């Protein structure tokens, strides 16, 4: 599914713009970075409450399609800068990880 469609449906705030053609194939939820590295699959959208710069390295290294910050957490400035450099889209939602996941599930992701 196109990330742009997910952004519309989730009503999420775009913190770092995606490219139009970014595709999402699955979902991974987690805040422990070593588990994300081991378990998240390529082109997954990653839901987390971590906001520091290292999440961009994680997303880049395992080819995640985007990061969704749950619970309306503020994203660090250097995280945003790095995500722009590395082309990792970041979205932000006031919803909980569970609520975001439910919406994605209903969308058929």
């Amino acid at each position, binding site marked *: 599914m196109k990330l742009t469609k997910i952004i519309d449906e989730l009503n999420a705030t775009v913190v770092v713009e995606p490219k139009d053609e970014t595709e999402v194939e699955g979902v991974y939820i987690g*805040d*422990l*970075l*070593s*588990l*994300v*590295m*081991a378990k998240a699959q*390529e082109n997954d959208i990653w839901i*987390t409450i*971590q906001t*520091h*710069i*290292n*999440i*961009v*390295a*994680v997303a*880049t*290294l*395992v*080819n995640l399609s985007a990061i969704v910050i749950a619970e309306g957490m503020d994203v660090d400035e*250097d995280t945003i800068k790095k995500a722009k450099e*590395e082309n990792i889209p970041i979205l932000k939602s006031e919803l909980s990880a569970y609520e975001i996941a439910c919406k994605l599930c209903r969308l058929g992701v």
Partner: protein
Amino acid sequence: MNKKDDTIKLEYDIIQNDFVRAGEASSNVKKILKQLGIDSKIIRRVAIVTYEAEMNIVIHSYGGKLLVEISSKKIEITAKDNGPGIEDIEKAMQEGFSTASNEIRELGFGAGMGLPNMKKCSDVLKIDSEKGKGTTVYMEIFMKSNQN
């Protein structure tokens, strides 16, 4: 990469507690492997082990180096630091074992999964460590592997 004796050597300094640059060495290695046209499954495994090794140096050591050698047969990864060393390697290898502080855990590190991830994703893993000296983690990932 076609010539058999062609080896590419990469070397990175990894600085203790430098969370802003942490992951850059691994990201750089990944970019180079992609440019070389290495299989994406191999790249994923190398990305995971270099990241975990790099983060362990940042978090648990006084600083060190990440060395990567790429040849047509295998990729060798060496993470070498200046201390303080691992007291009990067997314990450190267990899933869930971590000495990370609460502060570090709040950032999402300290699941105690780094070394187990390295073991899972490598074909060879050797850890050499002495308390008070330093730690060297050596790994090999074969280009033609039984793993997926």
